Protein backbone atom coordinates (compact mmCIF):
# COMPACT_ATOMS: atom_id res chain seq x y z
CA UNK A 1 0.00 0.00 0.00
CA UNK A 2 1.43 3.37 -0.83
CA UNK A 3 0.69 6.79 0.59
CA UNK A 4 -1.87 7.56 -2.15
CA UNK A 5 -4.02 4.64 -0.97
CA UNK A 6 -3.89 5.78 2.62
CA UNK A 7 -5.01 9.28 1.76
CA UNK A 8 -7.98 8.29 -0.41
CA UNK A 9 -10.73 10.91 -0.18
CA UNK A 10 -12.81 8.72 2.15
CA UNK A 11 -9.89 8.40 4.55
CA UNK A 12 -8.97 12.05 4.54
CA UNK A 13 -9.53 13.80 7.85
CA UNK A 14 -7.37 16.92 7.49
CA UNK A 15 -6.22 18.16 4.09
CA UNK A 16 -3.04 20.09 3.57
CA UNK A 17 -3.93 23.50 2.28
CA UNK A 18 -3.46 24.03 -1.43
CA UNK A 19 -1.29 27.03 -0.68
CA UNK A 20 1.46 24.95 0.87
CA UNK A 21 3.93 23.81 -1.81
CA UNK A 22 5.13 20.21 -2.04
CA UNK A 23 8.65 21.20 -1.02
CA UNK A 24 9.92 19.29 1.99
CA UNK A 25 9.91 21.56 5.02
CA UNK A 26 13.37 22.60 6.16
CA UNK A 27 12.26 22.59 9.79
CA UNK A 28 13.35 20.11 12.43
CA UNK A 29 10.75 17.37 12.90
CA UNK A 30 8.38 18.49 15.64
CA UNK A 31 8.98 22.21 15.12
CA UNK A 32 5.95 24.49 15.28
CA UNK A 33 6.94 26.64 12.28
CA UNK A 34 5.43 24.17 9.79
CA UNK A 35 2.06 24.17 11.52
CA UNK A 36 2.11 27.95 11.78
CA UNK A 37 2.73 28.13 8.00
CA UNK A 38 -0.13 25.74 7.31
CA UNK A 39 -2.55 27.69 9.50
CA UNK A 40 -1.62 30.96 7.82
CA UNK A 41 -1.91 29.55 4.30
CA UNK A 42 -5.23 27.93 5.24
CA UNK A 43 -6.65 31.35 6.08
CA UNK A 44 -5.46 32.89 2.81
CA UNK A 45 -6.87 29.97 0.85
CA UNK A 46 -10.25 30.07 2.60
CA UNK A 47 -10.51 33.83 2.20
CA UNK A 48 -9.67 33.43 -1.50
CA UNK A 49 -7.18 36.29 -1.42
CA UNK A 50 -4.06 34.71 -2.91
CA UNK A 51 -4.12 37.06 -5.92
CA UNK A 52 -3.90 40.05 -3.63
CA UNK A 53 -1.64 38.80 -0.86
CA UNK A 54 2.07 39.50 -0.43
CA UNK A 55 4.04 37.90 2.38
CA UNK A 56 7.36 38.99 3.84
CA UNK A 57 9.71 36.33 5.21
CA UNK A 58 12.27 37.11 7.92
CA UNK A 59 15.80 35.97 8.61
CA UNK A 60 15.52 33.08 11.00
CA UNK A 61 14.51 29.44 10.62
CA UNK A 62 11.58 30.63 8.51
CA UNK A 63 13.85 32.48 6.08
CA UNK A 64 12.77 29.93 3.47
CA UNK A 65 9.04 30.42 4.15
CA UNK A 66 8.70 31.35 0.46
CA UNK A 67 9.70 27.82 -0.47
CA UNK A 68 6.66 26.49 1.37
CA UNK A 69 4.03 29.19 0.99
CA UNK A 70 2.70 29.17 -2.56
CA UNK A 71 2.13 32.91 -2.72
CA UNK A 72 4.11 35.98 -3.82
CA UNK A 73 6.74 36.64 -1.18
CA UNK A 74 9.73 38.78 -0.39
CA UNK A 75 12.60 37.77 1.85
CA UNK A 76 13.60 40.70 4.07
CA UNK A 77 16.89 41.52 5.79
CA UNK A 78 17.10 40.44 9.45
CA UNK A 79 14.50 42.41 11.42
CA UNK A 80 13.36 44.66 8.57
CA UNK A 81 10.20 42.85 7.51
CA UNK A 82 7.85 45.49 9.00
CA UNK A 83 9.58 48.21 6.95
CA UNK A 84 9.39 46.08 3.80
CA UNK A 85 5.70 45.34 4.46
CA UNK A 86 5.00 49.00 5.23
CA UNK A 87 6.11 50.06 1.77
CA UNK A 88 4.21 47.28 0.02
CA UNK A 89 1.03 48.20 1.87
CA UNK A 90 1.53 51.92 1.23
CA UNK A 91 2.06 51.49 -2.50
CA UNK A 92 -0.67 48.83 -2.88
CA UNK A 93 -3.33 49.98 -0.40
CA UNK A 94 -5.86 47.38 -1.57
CA UNK A 95 -3.65 44.34 -1.00
CA UNK A 96 -3.21 42.05 1.98
CA UNK A 97 0.31 42.25 3.36
CA UNK A 98 1.78 40.20 6.19
CA UNK A 99 5.13 39.58 7.82
CA UNK A 100 6.15 36.28 9.37
CA UNK A 101 8.89 36.82 11.95
CA UNK A 102 10.73 35.10 14.76
CA UNK A 103 11.42 36.60 18.17
CA UNK A 104 15.06 37.46 17.42
CA UNK A 105 14.02 39.08 14.16
CA UNK A 106 11.07 41.04 15.55
CA UNK A 107 12.06 41.75 19.16
CA UNK A 108 15.84 42.20 18.95
CA UNK A 109 17.42 43.44 15.73
CA UNK A 110 14.12 44.66 14.30
CA UNK A 111 12.68 46.35 17.39
CA UNK A 112 12.72 49.80 15.81
CA UNK A 113 10.99 48.67 12.61
CA UNK A 114 8.42 46.71 14.67
CA UNK A 115 7.56 49.58 16.99
CA UNK A 116 7.36 52.20 14.26
CA UNK A 117 5.24 50.12 11.89
CA UNK A 118 2.92 49.51 14.87
CA UNK A 119 2.96 53.16 15.86
CA UNK A 120 2.10 54.31 12.34
CA UNK A 121 -0.76 51.83 12.34
CA UNK A 122 0.32 50.29 9.06
CA UNK A 123 -2.38 48.13 7.52
CA UNK A 124 -0.39 44.94 7.79
CA UNK A 125 -0.62 41.69 9.74
CA UNK A 126 2.38 40.56 11.77
CA UNK A 127 2.65 36.84 12.50
CA UNK A 128 5.17 36.63 15.31
CA UNK A 129 6.53 33.18 16.16
CA UNK A 130 8.04 33.34 19.63
CA UNK A 131 10.12 30.31 20.56
CA UNK A 132 12.23 32.12 23.14
CA UNK A 133 15.46 31.47 21.28
CA UNK A 134 17.47 32.05 18.13
CA UNK A 135 16.64 28.77 16.42
CA UNK A 136 18.40 29.29 13.14
CA UNK A 137 21.84 30.19 14.41
CA UNK A 138 21.88 27.26 16.82
CA UNK A 139 20.05 28.23 19.98
CA UNK A 140 21.44 31.52 21.27
CA UNK A 141 19.69 33.68 23.86
CA UNK A 142 16.89 35.90 22.52
CA UNK A 143 15.27 38.87 24.26
CA UNK A 144 12.38 36.46 24.88
CA UNK A 145 14.43 33.70 26.54
CA UNK A 146 12.95 32.83 29.93
CA UNK A 147 14.84 33.58 33.19
CA UNK A 148 17.36 30.84 33.98
CA UNK A 149 16.71 29.17 30.64
CA UNK A 150 19.93 27.82 29.18
CA UNK A 151 20.99 28.69 25.64
CA UNK A 152 24.31 28.55 23.83
CA UNK A 153 25.07 32.16 24.78
CA UNK A 154 23.62 31.79 28.28
CA UNK A 155 24.94 28.30 29.01
CA UNK A 156 24.36 28.70 32.76
CA UNK A 157 20.84 30.01 32.24
CA UNK A 158 19.66 33.54 31.45
CA UNK A 159 20.82 35.83 34.20
CA UNK A 160 18.20 38.56 34.41
CA UNK A 161 20.53 40.74 36.50
CA UNK A 162 22.83 41.21 33.51
CA UNK A 163 20.61 40.45 30.51
CA UNK A 164 17.23 41.81 31.58
CA UNK A 165 13.88 40.06 31.65
CA UNK A 166 12.14 38.38 28.72
CA UNK A 167 10.60 41.06 26.55
CA UNK A 168 6.83 40.93 26.15
CA UNK A 169 6.91 42.91 22.96
CA UNK A 170 3.32 42.14 22.00
CA UNK A 171 2.08 43.74 25.24
CA UNK A 172 4.46 46.62 24.61
CA UNK A 173 3.23 47.42 21.11
CA UNK A 174 -0.40 46.78 22.10
CA UNK A 175 -0.18 50.07 23.98
CA UNK A 176 0.31 51.97 20.73
CA UNK A 177 -2.84 53.47 19.18
CA UNK A 178 -1.75 52.19 15.74
CA UNK A 179 -2.21 48.60 16.87
CA UNK A 180 -5.82 47.52 16.38
CA UNK A 181 -5.58 44.00 17.73
CA UNK A 182 -2.97 41.94 19.53
CA UNK A 183 -3.32 38.39 20.74
CA UNK A 184 -1.19 35.44 21.75
CA UNK A 185 -1.73 31.90 20.54
CA UNK A 186 -0.17 28.47 20.12
CA UNK A 187 -0.42 25.89 17.34
CA UNK A 188 0.64 22.64 19.00
CA UNK A 189 -2.92 21.28 19.47
CA UNK A 190 -6.03 21.38 17.24
CA UNK A 191 -7.83 23.49 19.81
CA UNK A 192 -5.07 26.09 19.69
CA UNK A 193 -4.86 25.94 15.90
CA UNK A 194 -8.57 26.75 15.56
CA UNK A 195 -8.21 29.82 17.79
CA UNK A 196 -5.10 31.02 16.01
CA UNK A 197 -6.76 30.61 12.64
CA UNK A 198 -9.75 32.70 13.68
CA UNK A 199 -7.49 35.46 14.93
CA UNK A 200 -5.45 35.49 11.71
CA UNK A 201 -8.57 35.66 9.58
CA UNK A 202 -9.92 38.57 11.59
CA UNK A 203 -6.57 40.32 11.35
CA UNK A 204 -6.56 40.13 7.52
CA UNK A 205 -10.14 41.40 7.36
CA UNK A 206 -9.30 44.29 9.68
CA UNK A 207 -6.33 45.44 7.60
CA UNK A 208 -8.58 45.49 4.54
CA UNK A 209 -10.96 47.71 6.50
CA UNK A 210 -7.91 49.92 7.20
CA UNK A 211 -8.22 49.45 10.94
CA UNK A 212 -4.47 49.47 11.46
CA UNK A 213 -1.95 46.84 12.41
CA UNK A 214 -2.76 43.45 13.93
CA UNK A 215 -0.15 41.35 15.61
CA UNK A 216 -0.66 37.65 16.23
CA UNK A 217 1.96 36.11 18.50
CA UNK A 218 2.34 32.35 18.30
CA UNK A 219 4.23 30.88 21.23
CA UNK A 220 6.01 27.92 19.74
CA UNK A 221 8.62 25.31 20.49
CA UNK A 222 12.17 24.99 19.29
CA UNK A 223 12.90 21.43 20.21
CA UNK A 224 16.40 21.59 18.70
CA UNK A 225 17.40 24.84 20.37
CA UNK A 226 15.87 23.81 23.65
CA UNK A 227 17.67 20.44 23.36
CA UNK A 228 14.48 18.43 23.90
CA UNK A 229 12.40 15.75 22.20
CA UNK A 230 9.49 17.31 20.27
CA UNK A 231 6.81 16.08 22.64
CA UNK A 232 8.84 17.02 25.70
CA UNK A 233 9.34 20.49 24.21
CA UNK A 234 5.59 21.01 23.90
CA UNK A 235 5.05 20.03 27.53
CA UNK A 236 7.91 22.29 28.57
CA UNK A 237 6.34 25.08 26.55
CA UNK A 238 2.99 24.65 28.30
CA UNK A 239 4.59 24.53 31.72
CA UNK A 240 7.14 27.29 31.30
CA UNK A 241 6.39 29.54 28.33
CA UNK A 242 2.60 29.85 28.76
CA UNK A 243 2.71 31.10 32.37
CA UNK A 244 5.03 33.92 31.30
CA UNK A 245 3.56 34.48 27.82
CA UNK A 246 -0.12 34.16 28.67
CA UNK A 247 -2.26 33.05 25.75
CA UNK A 248 -5.33 35.07 24.76
CA UNK A 249 -6.35 38.51 23.67
CA UNK A 250 -4.17 41.46 24.62
CA UNK A 251 -5.96 44.11 22.61
CA UNK A 252 -9.25 43.73 20.77
CA UNK A 253 -10.55 46.24 18.23
CA UNK A 254 -8.46 49.07 19.61
CA UNK A 255 -9.17 48.32 23.30
CA UNK A 256 -6.67 46.80 25.70
CA UNK A 257 -8.02 43.74 27.50
CA UNK A 258 -8.05 44.23 31.25
CA UNK A 259 -6.39 41.16 32.76
CA UNK A 260 -7.11 41.50 36.48
Amino acid at each position, binding site marked *: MDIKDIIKPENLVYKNTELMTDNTLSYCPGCGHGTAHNVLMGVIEEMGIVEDTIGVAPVGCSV*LAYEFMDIDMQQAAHGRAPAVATAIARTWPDKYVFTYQGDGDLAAIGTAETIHACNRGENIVIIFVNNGIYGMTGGQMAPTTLPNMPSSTSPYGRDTATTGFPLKITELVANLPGVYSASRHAVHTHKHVRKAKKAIEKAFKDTRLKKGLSIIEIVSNCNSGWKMQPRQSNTWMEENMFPYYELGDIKVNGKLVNKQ
Partner: protein
Amino acid sequence: MAELKLMKGNEALAEAAIRAGVDAYFGYPITPQTEIIEYLMMEQPEKRTGMVVLQAESEVAAINMVYGAAGTGKRVFTSSSSPGISLKQEGISYMAGAEIPAVVVNVVRGGPGLGTIQPSQADYFQSVKGGGHGDYKLYVLAPASVQEMADFVEDAFDIAFKYMAPVLILSDGLIGQMMEKVYLKEQKPRWTDEEIYKMHNDWATFGRKNGRERNIITSLDLKSEKMEKRVHRLYKKYAQMEEEDLRYETIQCEDAEYIIVAYGSSARIAQKTVDLARAKGIKVGLLRPITLFPFPKKQLMELTKQVKGILSVELNTGQMVEDVRLAVEHKVPVEHFGRTGGIIHTPEEILEALQQKLIKG
Protein backbone atom coordinates in the same frame (compact mmCIF):
# COMPACT_ATOMS: atom_id res chain seq x y z
CA MET B 1 3.91 71.53 -18.41
CA ALA B 2 7.64 71.92 -19.05
CA GLU B 3 9.15 74.85 -17.14
CA LEU B 4 12.37 76.78 -16.58
CA LYS B 5 12.97 77.40 -12.87
CA LEU B 6 15.61 78.59 -10.43
CA MET B 7 16.07 75.80 -7.90
CA LYS B 8 18.42 74.10 -5.49
CA GLY B 9 19.88 70.82 -6.72
CA ASN B 10 18.06 68.84 -4.03
CA GLU B 11 14.72 70.46 -4.88
CA ALA B 12 15.23 69.96 -8.61
CA LEU B 13 15.84 66.26 -8.03
CA ALA B 14 12.68 65.96 -5.92
CA GLU B 15 10.55 67.82 -8.46
CA ALA B 16 11.99 65.78 -11.33
CA ALA B 17 11.06 62.59 -9.47
CA ILE B 18 7.43 63.68 -9.21
CA ARG B 19 7.40 64.64 -12.89
CA ALA B 20 9.00 61.35 -13.91
CA GLY B 21 5.99 59.56 -12.44
CA VAL B 22 7.91 57.93 -9.59
CA ASP B 23 5.68 55.90 -7.24
CA ALA B 24 7.25 56.40 -3.86
CA TYR B 25 9.98 58.00 -1.76
CA PHE B 26 11.15 56.81 1.65
CA GLY B 27 13.77 58.80 3.56
CA TYR B 28 15.17 60.13 6.80
CA PRO B 29 16.43 63.70 7.30
CA ILE B 30 20.16 64.44 7.16
CA THR B 31 22.07 67.53 6.03
CA PRO B 32 22.87 68.41 3.23
CA GLN B 33 19.98 66.62 1.47
CA THR B 34 16.99 67.22 3.73
CA GLU B 35 15.43 69.56 1.14
CA ILE B 36 14.53 66.47 -0.87
CA ILE B 37 12.06 65.10 1.69
CA GLU B 38 10.98 68.60 2.75
CA TYR B 39 10.22 69.56 -0.83
CA LEU B 40 8.28 66.34 -1.40
CA MET B 41 6.26 66.80 1.79
CA MET B 42 5.49 70.40 0.84
CA GLU B 43 4.45 69.47 -2.69
CA GLN B 44 2.07 66.70 -1.56
CA PRO B 45 2.75 64.54 -4.60
CA GLU B 46 0.05 62.09 -3.45
CA LYS B 47 -2.36 64.78 -4.65
CA ARG B 48 -0.44 65.56 -7.84
CA THR B 49 0.28 62.03 -9.05
CA GLY B 50 -0.54 59.56 -6.27
CA MET B 51 3.14 59.27 -5.33
CA VAL B 52 3.70 58.01 -1.77
CA VAL B 53 6.11 59.94 0.47
CA LEU B 54 6.95 58.59 3.90
CA GLN B 55 9.43 59.73 6.54
CA ALA B 56 10.95 56.53 7.87
CA GLU B 57 12.23 55.96 11.41
CA SER B 58 15.79 55.53 10.14
CA GLU B 59 17.83 55.11 6.98
CA VAL B 60 17.79 51.38 7.67
CA ALA B 61 14.00 51.34 7.60
CA ALA B 62 13.93 53.63 4.55
CA ILE B 63 16.13 51.42 2.37
CA ASN B 64 14.13 48.35 3.37
CA MET B 65 10.94 50.19 2.47
CA VAL B 66 12.49 50.83 -0.94
CA TYR B 67 13.27 47.11 -1.15
CA GLY B 68 9.66 46.22 -0.37
CA ALA B 69 7.89 48.59 -2.74
CA ALA B 70 10.45 48.20 -5.54
CA GLY B 71 10.05 44.44 -5.22
CA THR B 72 6.45 44.85 -6.33
CA GLY B 73 7.41 46.58 -9.61
CA LYS B 74 6.92 50.16 -8.43
CA ARG B 75 9.44 52.92 -9.16
CA VAL B 76 10.85 53.88 -5.78
CA PHE B 77 13.76 55.91 -4.45
CA THR B 78 15.45 57.08 -1.29
CA SER B 79 18.04 59.73 -0.55
CA SER B 80 20.48 60.42 2.23
CA SER B 81 23.96 61.73 2.94
CA SER B 82 27.09 59.84 3.88
CA PRO B 83 26.43 58.51 7.43
CA GLY B 84 22.90 57.57 6.36
CA ILE B 85 24.20 55.87 3.24
CA SER B 86 26.51 53.78 5.42
CA LEU B 87 23.40 52.59 7.27
CA LYS B 88 21.70 51.70 4.01
CA GLN B 89 24.50 49.46 2.77
CA GLU B 90 23.00 46.17 3.97
CA GLY B 91 19.78 46.99 2.16
CA ILE B 92 21.59 48.06 -1.01
CA SER B 93 23.53 44.79 -1.01
CA TYR B 94 20.25 42.88 -0.59
CA MET B 95 18.76 44.76 -3.54
CA ALA B 96 21.77 44.01 -5.72
CA GLY B 97 21.53 40.34 -4.74
CA ALA B 98 17.76 40.11 -5.15
CA GLU B 99 18.00 42.07 -8.45
CA ILE B 100 15.60 44.81 -7.44
CA PRO B 101 15.45 48.00 -9.54
CA ALA B 102 15.55 51.14 -7.40
CA VAL B 103 17.34 54.46 -7.08
CA VAL B 104 19.46 55.68 -4.16
CA VAL B 105 20.73 59.26 -3.92
CA ASN B 106 23.79 60.19 -1.86
CA VAL B 107 24.37 63.93 -1.38
CA VAL B 108 27.82 63.45 0.07
CA ARG B 109 29.20 65.30 3.10
CA GLY B 110 32.62 65.02 4.69
CA GLY B 111 33.62 62.07 6.83
CA PRO B 112 34.65 59.77 8.40
CA GLY B 113 32.23 59.54 11.29
CA LEU B 114 29.85 62.40 11.75
CA GLY B 115 32.47 64.43 9.87
CA THR B 116 31.12 67.67 8.54
CA ILE B 117 27.97 68.84 6.80
CA GLN B 118 30.10 70.53 4.13
CA PRO B 119 30.49 69.05 0.63
CA SER B 120 32.87 66.19 -0.03
CA GLN B 121 33.58 63.40 -2.48
CA ALA B 122 34.94 61.05 0.14
CA ASP B 123 32.34 58.34 -0.57
CA TYR B 124 33.83 57.45 -3.97
CA PHE B 125 35.30 54.14 -2.79
CA GLN B 126 32.08 53.23 -0.97
CA SER B 127 30.06 53.95 -4.12
CA VAL B 128 32.09 52.19 -6.80
CA LYS B 129 33.78 49.40 -4.89
CA GLY B 130 30.63 47.76 -3.55
CA GLY B 131 29.93 49.57 -0.31
CA GLY B 132 27.95 46.79 1.27
CA HIS B 133 28.92 43.14 1.63
CA GLY B 134 29.31 40.66 -1.18
CA ASP B 135 30.23 40.54 -4.86
CA TYR B 136 28.29 43.37 -6.47
CA LYS B 137 28.58 46.79 -8.07
CA LEU B 138 26.32 49.77 -8.45
CA TYR B 139 25.75 51.79 -11.60
CA VAL B 140 26.83 55.23 -10.35
CA LEU B 141 25.76 58.53 -11.92
CA ALA B 142 27.57 61.70 -10.82
CA PRO B 143 25.66 64.92 -11.56
CA ALA B 144 27.68 68.12 -11.95
CA SER B 145 24.83 70.62 -12.17
CA VAL B 146 21.33 71.27 -10.90
CA GLN B 147 20.10 70.31 -14.37
CA GLU B 148 21.75 66.92 -14.05
CA MET B 149 20.28 66.46 -10.55
CA ALA B 150 16.91 66.67 -12.30
CA ASP B 151 17.74 64.74 -15.48
CA PHE B 152 19.50 61.84 -13.80
CA VAL B 153 16.42 60.74 -11.85
CA GLU B 154 14.73 59.35 -14.94
CA ASP B 155 18.02 58.12 -16.41
CA ALA B 156 18.69 56.25 -13.16
CA PHE B 157 15.28 54.57 -13.21
CA ASP B 158 15.75 53.58 -16.85
CA ILE B 159 19.05 51.91 -16.03
CA ALA B 160 17.65 50.31 -12.86
CA PHE B 161 14.84 48.64 -14.81
CA LYS B 162 17.03 47.81 -17.81
CA TYR B 163 19.40 45.82 -15.59
CA MET B 164 17.13 44.97 -12.65
CA ALA B 165 19.61 46.52 -10.25
CA PRO B 166 19.90 49.37 -7.76
CA VAL B 167 21.40 52.57 -9.18
CA LEU B 168 23.21 55.27 -7.21
CA ILE B 169 23.13 59.00 -7.93
CA LEU B 170 26.31 60.27 -6.28
CA SER B 171 25.97 63.99 -5.74
CA ASP B 172 27.52 66.17 -3.05
CA GLY B 173 26.60 69.02 -0.74
CA LEU B 174 27.68 71.61 -3.29
CA ILE B 175 25.51 70.37 -6.16
CA GLY B 176 22.65 69.63 -3.75
CA GLN B 177 22.63 73.08 -2.17
CA MET B 178 23.48 75.42 -5.05
CA MET B 179 20.80 77.18 -7.08
CA GLU B 180 20.81 77.18 -10.86
CA LYS B 181 18.40 77.41 -13.72
CA VAL B 182 16.82 74.09 -14.43
CA TYR B 183 14.62 72.94 -17.24
CA LEU B 184 11.91 70.67 -15.89
CA LYS B 185 10.18 68.22 -18.17
CA GLU B 186 6.45 67.88 -18.31
CA GLN B 187 4.59 65.53 -16.02
CA LYS B 188 4.60 61.87 -16.98
CA PRO B 189 1.91 59.55 -15.63
CA ARG B 190 2.80 56.88 -13.08
CA TRP B 191 2.44 53.30 -14.24
CA THR B 192 -1.04 51.98 -13.61
CA ASP B 193 -1.53 48.78 -11.63
CA GLU B 194 -2.57 47.06 -14.86
CA GLU B 195 0.64 48.18 -16.57
CA ILE B 196 2.70 46.84 -13.69
CA TYR B 197 0.81 43.51 -13.78
CA LYS B 198 1.69 43.23 -17.46
CA MET B 199 5.25 44.54 -17.52
CA HIS B 200 6.54 42.87 -14.38
CA ASN B 201 4.46 39.72 -14.21
CA ASP B 202 7.52 37.49 -14.41
CA TRP B 203 9.27 38.76 -11.30
CA ALA B 204 7.37 41.30 -9.18
CA THR B 205 5.49 40.36 -6.00
CA PHE B 206 2.12 42.11 -6.31
CA GLY B 207 0.07 38.99 -5.55
CA ARG B 208 -0.03 35.69 -7.47
CA LYS B 209 -2.37 36.74 -10.29
CA ASN B 210 -4.13 34.76 -13.00
CA GLY B 211 -2.85 31.35 -12.01
CA ARG B 212 0.81 32.20 -12.65
CA GLU B 213 3.52 30.70 -10.46
CA ARG B 214 4.47 32.60 -7.34
CA ASN B 215 7.12 35.29 -7.62
CA ILE B 216 9.83 35.42 -5.00
CA ILE B 217 12.16 38.28 -4.11
CA THR B 218 15.22 36.92 -2.37
CA SER B 219 19.00 37.18 -2.37
CA LEU B 220 19.44 33.78 -0.71
CA ASP B 221 20.75 30.67 -2.42
CA LEU B 222 21.92 28.06 0.04
CA LYS B 223 23.18 25.84 -2.78
CA SER B 224 26.65 27.06 -3.67
CA GLU B 225 26.31 26.24 -7.37
CA LYS B 226 23.13 28.30 -7.60
CA MET B 227 24.68 31.16 -5.65
CA GLU B 228 27.71 31.20 -7.92
CA LYS B 229 25.37 31.34 -10.90
CA ARG B 230 23.55 34.29 -9.37
CA VAL B 231 26.81 36.18 -8.80
CA HIS B 232 27.92 35.44 -12.35
CA ARG B 233 24.59 36.71 -13.63
CA LEU B 234 25.19 39.97 -11.76
CA TYR B 235 28.68 40.30 -13.19
CA LYS B 236 27.35 39.81 -16.71
CA LYS B 237 25.13 42.82 -16.14
CA TYR B 238 28.08 44.89 -15.00
CA ALA B 239 30.01 43.90 -18.12
CA GLN B 240 27.02 44.91 -20.23
CA MET B 241 26.83 48.26 -18.41
CA GLU B 242 30.47 48.86 -19.36
CA GLU B 243 29.69 48.06 -23.00
CA GLU B 244 26.42 49.93 -23.38
CA ASP B 245 25.92 52.56 -20.71
CA LEU B 246 29.23 54.27 -20.00
CA ARG B 247 28.85 58.07 -19.87
CA TYR B 248 31.53 60.76 -19.82
CA GLU B 249 32.25 64.22 -21.17
CA THR B 250 35.46 65.65 -22.60
CA ILE B 251 36.23 69.36 -22.56
CA GLN B 252 39.10 70.72 -24.66
CA CYS B 253 40.84 67.37 -24.73
CA GLU B 254 41.61 67.36 -28.47
CA ASP B 255 44.98 69.12 -28.22
CA ALA B 256 45.52 68.72 -24.49
CA GLU B 257 48.96 67.95 -23.08
CA TYR B 258 47.63 67.56 -19.58
CA ILE B 259 44.32 66.12 -18.49
CA ILE B 260 42.33 66.76 -15.37
CA VAL B 261 39.96 63.95 -14.43
CA ALA B 262 37.17 65.16 -12.16
CA TYR B 263 33.50 64.42 -11.55
CA GLY B 264 30.60 66.26 -9.91
CA SER B 265 31.41 69.56 -8.19
CA SER B 266 35.16 69.08 -8.76
CA ALA B 267 34.50 68.92 -12.49
CA ARG B 268 32.63 72.21 -12.35
CA ILE B 269 35.57 73.89 -10.63
CA ALA B 270 38.17 72.20 -12.82
CA GLN B 271 36.41 73.51 -15.92
CA LYS B 272 37.49 76.98 -14.80
CA THR B 273 41.03 75.69 -14.28
CA VAL B 274 41.12 74.60 -17.92
CA ASP B 275 40.35 78.18 -18.99
CA LEU B 276 42.90 79.66 -16.58
CA ALA B 277 45.58 77.26 -17.84
CA ARG B 278 44.85 77.92 -21.48
CA ALA B 279 45.04 81.68 -20.86
CA LYS B 280 48.57 80.98 -19.64
CA GLY B 281 49.35 78.86 -22.69
CA ILE B 282 49.19 75.48 -20.90
CA LYS B 283 47.11 73.03 -22.91
CA VAL B 284 44.85 71.41 -20.33
CA GLY B 285 41.73 69.36 -20.98
CA LEU B 286 39.06 67.92 -18.70
CA LEU B 287 37.70 64.40 -18.74
CA ARG B 288 34.53 64.26 -16.66
CA PRO B 289 33.27 60.77 -15.87
CA ILE B 290 29.48 61.02 -15.71
CA THR B 291 29.23 57.40 -14.65
CA LEU B 292 31.80 56.40 -12.02
CA PHE B 293 30.91 52.79 -12.63
CA PRO B 294 31.24 52.09 -15.51
CA PHE B 295 34.46 54.14 -15.59
CA PRO B 296 35.92 55.62 -18.84
CA LYS B 297 38.95 53.32 -18.75
CA LYS B 298 39.48 52.99 -22.50
CA GLN B 299 39.08 56.71 -23.06
CA LEU B 300 41.76 57.42 -20.47
CA MET B 301 44.10 54.88 -22.03
CA GLU B 302 43.50 56.48 -25.42
CA LEU B 303 44.48 59.88 -23.99
CA THR B 304 47.83 58.54 -22.75
CA LYS B 305 48.94 58.61 -26.40
CA GLN B 306 48.84 62.40 -26.39
CA VAL B 307 49.19 63.69 -22.81
CA LYS B 308 52.19 64.14 -20.53
CA GLY B 309 50.33 63.69 -17.29
CA ILE B 310 46.96 63.34 -15.60
CA LEU B 311 45.68 65.05 -12.46
CA SER B 312 42.79 63.47 -10.62
CA VAL B 313 40.95 66.23 -8.79
CA GLU B 314 38.61 65.12 -6.04
CA LEU B 315 37.22 66.48 -2.76
CA ASN B 316 39.05 63.78 -0.80
CA THR B 317 42.59 62.55 -0.10
CA GLY B 318 42.79 60.41 -3.24
CA GLN B 319 40.26 57.78 -4.19
CA MET B 320 39.32 57.96 -7.88
CA VAL B 321 43.02 58.49 -8.62
CA GLU B 322 43.49 54.76 -8.00
CA ASP B 323 41.06 53.92 -10.79
CA VAL B 324 42.72 56.43 -13.11
CA ARG B 325 46.09 54.78 -12.43
CA LEU B 326 44.62 51.33 -13.07
CA ALA B 327 43.11 52.59 -16.32
CA VAL B 328 46.32 54.06 -17.75
CA GLU B 329 48.63 51.26 -16.59
CA HIS B 330 51.48 53.61 -15.69
CA LYS B 331 51.80 54.89 -19.25
CA VAL B 332 51.83 58.50 -17.98
CA PRO B 333 52.28 60.05 -14.53
CA VAL B 334 49.03 60.31 -12.56
CA GLU B 335 48.77 62.62 -9.57
CA HIS B 336 46.01 63.54 -7.18
CA PHE B 337 44.92 66.89 -5.88
CA GLY B 338 42.06 67.53 -3.53
CA ARG B 339 40.93 69.40 -0.47
CA THR B 340 38.92 67.62 2.17
CA GLY B 341 37.11 68.14 5.45
CA GLY B 342 34.48 70.21 3.67
CA ILE B 343 36.89 72.66 2.01
CA ILE B 344 36.32 73.22 -1.69
CA HIS B 345 39.33 73.73 -3.91
CA THR B 346 39.60 76.84 -6.06
CA PRO B 347 40.39 76.75 -9.79
CA GLU B 348 43.69 78.51 -9.01
CA GLU B 349 44.68 75.90 -6.43
CA ILE B 350 44.06 73.17 -8.96
CA LEU B 351 46.17 74.91 -11.58
CA GLU B 352 48.97 75.39 -9.08
CA ALA B 353 48.82 71.71 -8.15
CA LEU B 354 48.94 70.75 -11.80
CA GLN B 355 52.02 72.89 -12.36
CA GLN B 356 53.74 71.68 -9.18
CA LYS B 357 52.98 67.99 -9.52
CA LEU B 358 53.09 67.42 -13.26
CA ILE B 359 54.84 70.23 -15.09
CA LYS B 360 57.63 71.50 -12.80
CA GLY B 361 58.07 68.14 -11.11
